[in-house]
């Protein structure tokens, strides 16, 4: 039930700060500089890049691509591989689905395979693992490839939100080299049952909602023992971060070196979350509550999620009865963001072929096919995220997820991120259950997190 996407939200105070300008400015400068270098390299380079667009250098070899998926999802990759083989018929791509219950479990399984000598060429890694993989010297720097194929990739970088490009550049590696091209991401939105709100005669949520307006509506729509107003679980990306960020708080500082989980804004957010459980608006934590099915049964009015409930909601035939709005704000808008990437492994023996596949995955063709399959992430290309392929048969407001990139904060992903995440979940289970007071629990969590940084 937990979204696979993890993302972090930047704290947005509703206006362009100097930091934003620097971020966007440097992204533009990077692109501009890249172009300039490309132009300066002389006719040979420009000829090569032109011909590389028109007639892609043919490579060959076998490429293994490991993803966190089950057997059903593996089948959905056939059209993508097929389209790739139209451009590169000599490359054999094997998509290796690795089932797991979490990103941590996926990393374990892949690491075990690597230890056993089965090194995949490309792995799909989420934000949480990107820095970890890069810091262990397991992945190949892409700078040379990107520079060589600059012209080809320009279309990609132009089509992706500059925030995402910048975060990927600064946060996913520890040595300034580029190891990843950003791929599908998730941000958080508020999913609500329009049907339930209508039946209860309560005004539907809006993008401008504040916490107080949210509370008022939730109280009206909740029927004790029958209908829950909102699902407030002890989940890091899907629950703690959006409430924290909309109150101007976060678990870690912006550079992920210090814990900020015991600051007043964070304690206030945690107290708020507990109050929702106490009032019976949210179900109790620590159980097997299935938000999607419960909403389709008409017994849950709202839950928080990104793109990932889409497949389930389609199956439950509830898509046209749900809608999405931005998360209610207190200090400002906020959403975590996390994105996938496709690093090429250092130990790969087919790096050129792997790079061709990675580039293909960044192309519009591949992303259109991928969203057509109903995947759990939002494509990084704006053109695809706004296309019918992505928006058809989805709740009204699905476009809000891409818009959230303008105010999102990357989900903190230091090296021991999975340990920290577990500590956060444990602590919030106790807070939401009422076993511990927020201030005391968060002070203790603060020390635990700091010890793991």
């Amino acid at each position: 039930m937990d979204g696979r996407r993890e993302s972090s939200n930047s704290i947005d105070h509703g206006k362009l700060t100097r930091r934003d300008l620097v971020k966007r400015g440097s992204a533009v400068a990077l692109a501009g500089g890249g172009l300039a270098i490309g132009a300066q390299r002389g006719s040979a380079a420009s000829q090569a890049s032109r011909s590389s667009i028109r007639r892609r250098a043919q490579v060959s070899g076998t490429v293994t691509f490991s993803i966190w998926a089950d057997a059903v999802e593996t089948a959905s990759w056939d059209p993508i591989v097929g389209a790739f083989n139209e451009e590169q018929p000599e490359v054999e791509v094997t998509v290796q689905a690795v089932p797991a219950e979490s990103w941590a479990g996926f990393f374990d399984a892949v690491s075990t395979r690597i230890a056993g000598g089965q090194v995949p060429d490309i792995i799909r890694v989420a934000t949480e693992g990107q820095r970890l993989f890069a810091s262990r010297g397991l992945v190949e720097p892409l700078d040379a490839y990107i520079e060589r194929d600059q012209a080809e990739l320009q279309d990609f970088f132009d089509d992706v939100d500059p925030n995402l490009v910048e975060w990927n550049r600064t946060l996913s590696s520890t040595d300034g080299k580029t190891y990843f091209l950003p791929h599908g991401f998730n941000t958080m939105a508020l999913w609500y049952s329009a049907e339930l709100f209508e039946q209860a005669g309560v005004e539907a949520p809006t993008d401008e909602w504040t916490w107080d307006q949210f509370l008022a509506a939730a109280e009206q729509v909740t029927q004790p023992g029958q209908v829950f107003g909102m699902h407030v679980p002890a989940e890091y990306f899907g629950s703690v971060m959006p409430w924290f960020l909309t109150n101007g708080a976060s678990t870690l500082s912006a550079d992920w070196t210090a814990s900020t989980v015991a600051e007043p804004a964070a304690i206030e957010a945690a107290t708020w979350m507990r109050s929702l459980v106490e009032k019976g608006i949210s179900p109790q934590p620590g159980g097997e509550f299935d938000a999607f099915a419960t909403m389709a049964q008409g017994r849950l009015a709202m839950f928080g999620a990104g793109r990932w409930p889409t497949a389930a909601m389609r199956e439950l035939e509830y898509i046209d009865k749900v809608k999405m709005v931005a998360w209610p704000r207190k200090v400002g808008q906020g959403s975590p963001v996390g994105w996938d990437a496709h690093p090429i492994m250092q130990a790969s023996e087919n790096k050129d072929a792997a790079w061709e596949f990675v580039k293909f995955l960044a192309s519009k063709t591949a992303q259109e096919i991928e969203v057509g399959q109903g995947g759990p992430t939002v494509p990084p290309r704006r053109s695809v995220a706004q296309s019918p392929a992505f928006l058809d048969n989805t709740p009204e407001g699905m476009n809000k997820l891409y818009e959230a990139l303008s105010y999102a904060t990357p989900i903190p992903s230091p090296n021991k991120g999975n340990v920290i995440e577990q500590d956060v979940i444990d602590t919030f289970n106790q807070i939401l259950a009422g076993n511990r007071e927020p201030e005391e629990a968060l002070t203790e969590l603060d020390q635990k997190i700091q010890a793991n940084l």
Partner: protein
Amino acid sequence: MGTTPAAQPRVGDLTDRLKPRGGASPLSRRETIAAYLFLSPAILLFVIFIAGPLLGAIALSLFQWDLLTPAKFVGLQNFERLPRDATARSAVVNTFVFTFWSVVLHIGLGLVLALGVSRGMPAVLRYFLRTAFFFPLLVSWAAVALIWAYILDPNFGFITYYLRDVGLPAPIFLIDPDWAMPAIIAVDLWRTIGFTFIILLAGLQGIPSHLYEAAAVDGAGAFRRFWNITIPMLSPTLFFATVITFIGAFQIFEPMFIMTRGGPGDSTLSIVMHIYETGFRAFEMGYASALALIVFLVIMIVTLIQLALSRYWVFHE
């Protein structure tokens, strides 16, 4: 002229003559080879799956290995780290608590159930009860843990429902630090009681009934019969059940892993789960091997203690 002991014929003399000194006869050599051949599958499996990995673990405990980069020899560093590992200490304490209650409850309840079922009752009912008590053992731990997670769910689980119905406070079992371990002990009891039950039942049925009859004739009451006949005659079985239950309980992993992940905090972290997390989450295989060796030693020492004590209470006919 008395006969010397050596002059008296013994059974052994005859077989001695069949076995020439200094070596085996072709017949017995063939028998020996046949015996080893029959044993070889078991020996092979033992070497490949038990002895080999054990030696590997001993070797690995002297290295530092993160699965992804080559192993590095560090000597006894992993063992020096052990006393400082507070999480390992918690895990060992949790495991001993779990094991103590597990053994006590399994033997106690197993005995009660076995006594109940071995009484005179319709054969159909007895057959049904035997199957019913044993059945959960055949269900995979994953399924059992999932089912119980739903039963104990705070929003729609029926235990919570009935507790509230009766007016009792219903804790959220799996995230309450005071209730998580008792919940795991209870679920484990539900699943594995069948094992001790069947063993003790077989032991009970092996007690000759003439002993009870003789005791009844002598005027012994139910309690005296239980204490002076049942318990001593059952003691080898009780001893076996206790040793096996301890060995199994000390290595408990699945219910914690599936239901609580060692949480809340570290209150349900078992030592085997800590080994798993150290090896596969923190990528410290060498240290995990050292921990595993400690578990092996603890189990061996406790079993040896139990063997030594068995002289005093296990009655062998």
